[in-house]
Every structure is written in structure tokens, then in C-alpha cells.
């Protein structure tokens, strides 16, 4: 039975049924998993999508109920673990932060599910796809709703598992297998950090439940807090693809495009951001950790943006873009603006998902080709895709009044106003790069003359089931920022989220209007600079991209090869690990098997030796009896003579 414990006293409404939200995708997973392959076949798509849409409706309801004033409700299902001091419930914390996350995951998720019905229609693994997709949705929702670190970890691991399953969806080919393994390995390294953070939290605070831990922040030493926060950030870096655990995300593009859109743009990779945002009271109390978060976020942002400049695979461009935008979110967290980070998380979910789905539509149209050098001029053939992707691209480049502008501008302003001028500068430069590579990608794909006429002739717009989600996401990308984030710092989302992420002792900067306008202008100018340079290079060939490539020479090669990071990792870590495994394997074969086989050989040898007593000659056996008699007599004699003491 659902039993709710409510510190907020207003009528709970739908919050009581919040556990239905993950339960619906879980049910879809079970039904699809058990019956999908043989009986349901394409109905699995409807079941999974229907579950997500219903969950989205419920999420809207829960959101409205939280809005009405239920700022902090815990809905407990049951006590999971109760061992002495260690108590963990399966319980959901329904507050503004989690309700926003629920909305983002379910709404964007539903649209992607619907899109996938069309995109995967010809794939023979269709039921399997929707089974894993639903399981992922369940795990992600569990992650977002949990009221304690351990339950959240269950969801955390679950999304990691589903990421592996879905990246390696076309497992018959070697590249997806390797990509899935790589993703899982890097995630696992992050999970190690998360586990250390989680266990240390329990050791220091005696609990893993958010509310209990945050109440007692004062009792921990600075050293403890820093340890916990850095450990959690390692986990977040693994899950959200920050340096140095980022290189799995571009490889994850081996998976089907809806997977890239849902898992590697809108939801799973944002789990790290959510973790840090949720743990704001801890991070704020441990001063240096926030610096680390901010710096790594900023460096990752610019690093990934430089690589995106020269990629030719359209999905790779979007992947590096995602890494870069996630860096922005961590930058926001690092300068003490968690609301800005969550805001950007929400807008990014819309426009990045749209960019990925649009790419999927393009790829589908040109017969599974992903290299932009073979595209061109497609805007005439794919109008809906073109216009929706244009809006999303504009949002990514942070052009007002699209959604991305409001959230990115807020991040940059927060960086500047809190005194982190260096980070602000990095953010501005990255914004220029972002606008440039998005323009480049759009132009290479949709404008100019078609470079491969065969592909161009066969290109066709996608069916309605795929274009409708594109349109809806475009609406979100365009309007969401204005709707919830205007005016800056005083919009709806700011007042809504503040109680959830407020931390004691954080000073609110109160800037003048002139400063705000100047900063916004700087952001807009940065975006325009990028776009103008892009158009100039690609439309008018001033300067010509090929010439720039030749001139940059070694720098260009460095970027195209992604700074040789993969090769570095391979040489330093992978080969060392393989050598270590070799040692372990040798130990297993020689020592452990040696012992086992040795015991066997010993038994056999013993038996073989003892066997020689059985000569088969009866006389020998009689002699043995006499020898035994001799032994008995000796023993008796010794006993009688007092040799053996009683």
C-alpha cells in the first residue's frame, strides 16, 4: 500500500500516485519483455509509448500539485533496509526539483518514444528495442524520484545498464559492441566515485536520505565534505561525460538515433547534473569542490566544442555538442547557480533531442548515411526537418528569443557576476565556437549543392509519426525559455526551484539592470559572431574552409583526431589493464588450477601407490594379517610395560 508522509499540509492530489509514473514504463518493460518477441511484435511500440504518455500526463499533474504549494512531500512505498542504524526506504521525494526533472524526462521521452516507432519500424529487433527503452525510462524516473542516495544509485546503475544494452543494440557488428563496453567501463569508474561518496555520507551523517543529510551538514568536517563532494562529482563526470571520462559519449553514437536523443542528450547524461544540483547544500558547504566542478565544466565545454568544429559525422557533431553543453551546466553549478543549470538542462533537453531526432530523420532519408560531406541541399527535400532543426540550431547557438538563449545567458551572467571572470570568458569563446559548428553542420547538410546526387535523388521527407514529435519539440525549443525563464532571475522557474536548491549562506548578487543588459548583449554578440563567420566561410568561401584546413595543418589534425585522447587512454589504461588481466589469468590457470589439478593428481598418485598393496596373491594377504598381529603384540607389550602412558 502506498503510505505517504507529508510535511506539506495542503491537499496532495496526484502526488499520492507519484509512484505510478515509473511503474507504467516498468509494466511496459515487463509486458514487452515477456510477450513482445512472439506475440506483440509492433504493438510493443504502442505499449511503451502509451505508458510514457500516460506517465507524462501524471507528471504534469504532479507538477501542478507541487505548484499549488506542496513544496516537500515524501511518498514512501516500504522500508527496504532496516539494519541497526542503517535505514533506507523505497520512497519518493516530491519537490520542485524532482517534479521538473519528472516533467522533462517524461515529456521529452514521450516524444522520442513516438518518433522511435517510425524510425525503428523496419528493424527486426523492434520489440527488444522498446523493452530496453521502457526499462531505461523506469530507471531514469526512479533515479530522479528517489529520496536517498542508495535508491538513486539503483536508478543510476539501471540507466547505465540500459545505456550499454541500447548502445550495443546492433550487437552483430563489432563497433557497437566496443562502444557499449567502453561506455559501461567509463560509467563504472564514475560509479566507483559515487559509491565512495555514498558510503562516506553514511559514515559521516549516519543516513543516506537527502533531507536527513542536508539538515545535519554542520556536523561534518571540511575534509569529509570535500571528500564526499569530489567523490560524487567523479560519479557525475562519468555519467555526464565530463573530462576525463567523456570519450564514451561520441562512441555511443553507434546506437540507434532515438537512443542518442533520449539517453545521451536529454536524460541519462543529465543525471550527473541532477546529482550535483540535488546535493547543493553539501557542495556549498565544501568550498573548494564547487571550484573543481566549475573549472572542469568550463574546460570540458571548450574542449568538446573545438573537436566539434571539424567532425564530419553529423551525429558526432551533436555528441560533442552535448558534452560541451553539459560542461555549461556544470559551470553553472560551479559558480553557485543551480537554478540556471537546471534551466539549461530543461531547454537543452528539448533542442538537443530535436537536433538528434532531426539528424535521425536526415539519416533515414538518405539511406543511413551519416557523413555530411555526402549531403547538401536537402532543405528542399526535407522541409519539416529543415525548419525544425533550424529552430533547434538557433536555440543551441543561443539566439534570442529561442529557449537556449535565456538559459545560456543566465549561466554566463551568473559566472560573471559571481566573480569568475575567467570562466565567463571561456564560456563566451565556447559560445562562439558553438554557433560556428552548428552553422557549419546545418549548411553542409541542408544548403548548397548536393554533393552526392544518388543520395539526393532518393531523399524523402519522413512520415508523420516522425515529423510530429519534431514539430512539438521545436515548439518547446522556441518558447520554453520565454515561458519559464523571463525575466532573467525573476522568472517562473527561479521562484519555483528556489526552495528546492537553496543552501544556507549563499549570497544573492543583486546586479543593476545595465550590467544585466550588457552581459546579455555580450552573449548575443558571441552567438552572432559565430554564425557570421560560419556563413562567411561556407557560403561565400571567405576564407575558404579547405584553405583554412591546409593552413592550420597540425592543429587541424589534432582536432580531427580528437586530441588523440582515445589513443592515450588505450595505451595508458587499456593496455595496462589488459596486462594486469593477463597476470590474473596466468595466476588462475597456473596457481589455482594447479592446486585443483594437483590435488587430483595427488589423489590419483596416492591411489596408484596404495593399489600396489592389492597383489591378488592370497599369501600376501595372509602375511599382512600376521604383520598386523605383530603390531598388536608390540602395542600390547608396550602397554603392559608401561611405555604408553594412560
Amino acid at each position, binding site marked *: 500500500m502506498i503510505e505517504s508522509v507529508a510535511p506539506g499540509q495542503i491537499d496532495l492530489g496526484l502526488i499520492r500516485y507519484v509512484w505510478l509514473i515509473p511503474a507504467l514504463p516498468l509494466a511496459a518493460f515487463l509486458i514487452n519483455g515477456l510477450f513482445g518477441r512472439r506475440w506483440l511484435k509492433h504493438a510493443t511500440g504502442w505499449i511503451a509509448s502509451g505508458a510514457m504518455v500516460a506517465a507524462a500526463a501524471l507528471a504534469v499533474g504532479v507538477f501542478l500539485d507541487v505548484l499549488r504549494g506542496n513544496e516537500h512531500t515524501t511518498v514512501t512505498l516500504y522500508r527496504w533496509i532496516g539494519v541497526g542504524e542503517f535505514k533506507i526506504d523505497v520512497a519518493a521525494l516530491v519537490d520542485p526539483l524532482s517534479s521538473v526533472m519528472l516533467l522533462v524526462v517524461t515529456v521529452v521521452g514521450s516524444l522520442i518514444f513516438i518518433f522511435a516507432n517510425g524510425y525503428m519500424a523496419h528493424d527486426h529487433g523492434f520489440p527488444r528495442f522498446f523493452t530496453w527503452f521502457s526499462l531505461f525510462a523506469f530507471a531514469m524516473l526512479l533515479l530522479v524520484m528517489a529520496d536517498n542516495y542508495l535508491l538513486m544509485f539503483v536508478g543510476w546503475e539501471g540507466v547505465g545498464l540500459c545505456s550499454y544494452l541500447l548502445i550495443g543494440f546492433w550487437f552483430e557488428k563489432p563497433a557497437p559492441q566496443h562502444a557499449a563496453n567502453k561506455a559501461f567501463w567509463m560509467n563504472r569508474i564514475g560509479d566507483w566515485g559515487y559509491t565512495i561518496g555514498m558510503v562516506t555520507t553514511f559514515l559521516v551523517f549516519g543516513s543516506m536520505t537527502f533531507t536527513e543529510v542536508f539538515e545535519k551538514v554542520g556536523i561534518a568536517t571540511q575534509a569529509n565534505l570535500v571528500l564526499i563532494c569530489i567523490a560524487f562529482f567523479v560519479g557525475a563526470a562519468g555519467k555526464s561525460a565530463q573530462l576525463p571520462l567523456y570519450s564514451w559519449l561520441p562512441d555511443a553514437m553507434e546506437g540507434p538515433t532515438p537512443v542518442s536523443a533520449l539517453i545521451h542528450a536529454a536524460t541519462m547524461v543529465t543525471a550527473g547534473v541532477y546529482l550535483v544540483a540535488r546535493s547543493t547544500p553539501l557542495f556549498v558547504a565544501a568550498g573548494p569542490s564547487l571550484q573543481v566542478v566549475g573549472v572542469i565544466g568550463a574546460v570540458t565545454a571548450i574542449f568538446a566544442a573545438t573537436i566539434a568544429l571539424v567532425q564530419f559525422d553529423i551525429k558526432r557533431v551533436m555528441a560533442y555538442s552535448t558534452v560541451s553543453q553539459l560542461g555549461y551546466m556544470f559551470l553553472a553549478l560551479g559558480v553557485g547557480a543551480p537554478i540556471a543549470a537546471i534551466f539549461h538542462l530543461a531547454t537543452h533537453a528539448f533542442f538537443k533531442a530535436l537536433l538528434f531526432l532531426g539528424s535521425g530523420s536526415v539519416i533515414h532519408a538518405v539511406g543511413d548515411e551519416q557523413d555530411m560531406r555526402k549531403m547538401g541541399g536537402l532543405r528542399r527535400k526535407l522541409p519539416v526537418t529543415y525548419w525544425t532543426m533550424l529552430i533547434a540550431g538557433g536555440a543551441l547557438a543561443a539566439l534570442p528569443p529561442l529557449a537556449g538563449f535565456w538559459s545560456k545567458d543566465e549561466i554566463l551572467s551568473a559566472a560573471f557576476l559571481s566573480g569568475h571572470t575567467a570562466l565567463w570568458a571561456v564560456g563566451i569563446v565556447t559560445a562562439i565556437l558553438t554557433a560556428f559548428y552548428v552553422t557549419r553542420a546545418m549548411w553542409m547538410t541542408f544548403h548548397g549543392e548536393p554533393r552526392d546526387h544518388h543520395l539526393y535523388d532518393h531523399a524523402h521527407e519522413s512520415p508523420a509519426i516522425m515529423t510530429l514529435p519534431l514539430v512539438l519539440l521545436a515548439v518547446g525549443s522556441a518558447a520554453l525559455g520565454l515561458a519559464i525563464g523571463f525575466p532573467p532571475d525573476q522568472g517562473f522557474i527561479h521562484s519555483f526551484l528556489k526552495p528546492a536548491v537553496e543552501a544556507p549562506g549563499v549570497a544573492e548578487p543583486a546586479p543593476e539592470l545595465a550590467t544585466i543588459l550588457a552581459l546579455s548583449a555580450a552573449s548575443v554578440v558571441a552567438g552572432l559572431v559565430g554564425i557570421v563567420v560560419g556563413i562567411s566561410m561556407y557560403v561565400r568561401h571567405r576564407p575558404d574552409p579547405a584553405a583554412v584546413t591546409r593552413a592550420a595543418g597540425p592543429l587541424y589534425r589534432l582536432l580531427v583526431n580528437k586530441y588523440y585522447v582515445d589513443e592515450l587512454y588505450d595505451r595508458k589504461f587499456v593496455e595496462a589493464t589488459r596486462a594486469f588481466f593477463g597476470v590474473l589469468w596466468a595466476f588462475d590457470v597456473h596457481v589455482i588450477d594447479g592446486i585443483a589439478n594437483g590435488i587430483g593428481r595427488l589423489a590419483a598418485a596416492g591411489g596408484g601407490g596404495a593399489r600396489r598393496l592389492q597383489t591378488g596373491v592370497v599369501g600376501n594377504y595372509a602375511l599382512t594379517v600376521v604383520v598386523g598381529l*605383530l603390531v598388536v603384540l608390540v602395542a600390547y607389550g608396550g602397554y603392559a610395560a608401561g611405555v604408553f602412558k594412560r
Partner: protein
Amino acid sequence: MSYDFLETILFALLTIGIVGGAVGVVFLNRITGAALLMAFTFLCNAGMFVLLGAETIAAFQVLIYVGAITVLILYGVMFTPQQHRPYALFFQKQTPWAALFVAPIAIFVALFAFSFRDSAHPTPRGGDLVPLATSVFKDFAFPFEVASVLLLAAMIGAIVLVKRDEDE
């Protein structure tokens, strides 16, 4: 006049008979000779029993051992003719080992035996039958019956073992 010395002479003669017969059984190459010497040993043993005043036992000894068992052994000898072979091959391969282990025990036991110094106390003449019979049929009636069952089983077993397979 004391005729005690007669006992000693008789004992010595019977001892020579027993030991000589046994040595002959063990070391003689002609098997029928060995069998007959065994019978001679049995007879001397019966004499020992008489010396100890256990005439009934002596009678049983002669009946069973000299009478039945010797005949059985002779039957066995008769039905298992062996080819002639050199004397050395009468002995098992393990003979040296056997000697090694038996000698110490034998010496030890013989020495131990000589520690019994008290005299033997024979029953009066003809006086051992009644107590024996009373004991067997009163105190040991059950083992007696079991012994008869054992004999029955042995008889049947021996017949079964030796039966030829019928070809009908």
C-alpha cells in the same frame, strides 16, 4: 612309588610327535606324506588331551580330526593332482618376508609361554564328561544350536560350490 616321571616322559614323546609332525607337514614335498603326518599330529594332540585329563575332548579329537578332517584333506589331495616340480618351487615368493615377520612373534610368544609356572591340574579319570555336557546343554544351549545351523550352512555351501553346471 611315584610314577610322576612317566608323565614327563609321555609329555616329551608327545611333544616330539606334535612338533615333528607339524614340521613334516610344512616342509615335506610329498603331499600325501604331509597329510598323514598331519593325522599323526592330531593323534599326539589327542594324547595331550588325555594327559590333561580331558578324555572326552580327546575322543572328539580323534573322531573329528583324525577321522573326518584327514579324510577330507585326502580327498582334496586326490582331486587336485599337480605336476612334478622342483622342491624350491613348493614355496611361495614371499617366503623370506614371512620368515622375517613370523620369527620375532614366535620367539616372543614362546618366551611368554614359559612364564606360566603353576602346575596343570587335570580332572580325575572319567570326571570331565558330566561337567562338559552340563555346561554345553545348559549354559551354552543357544550357541550349540547356532553351531548346528552353521554346519548345515557349510554343508549346503560346499555342495553348491562344487556342483557342476548342468547341461540339459
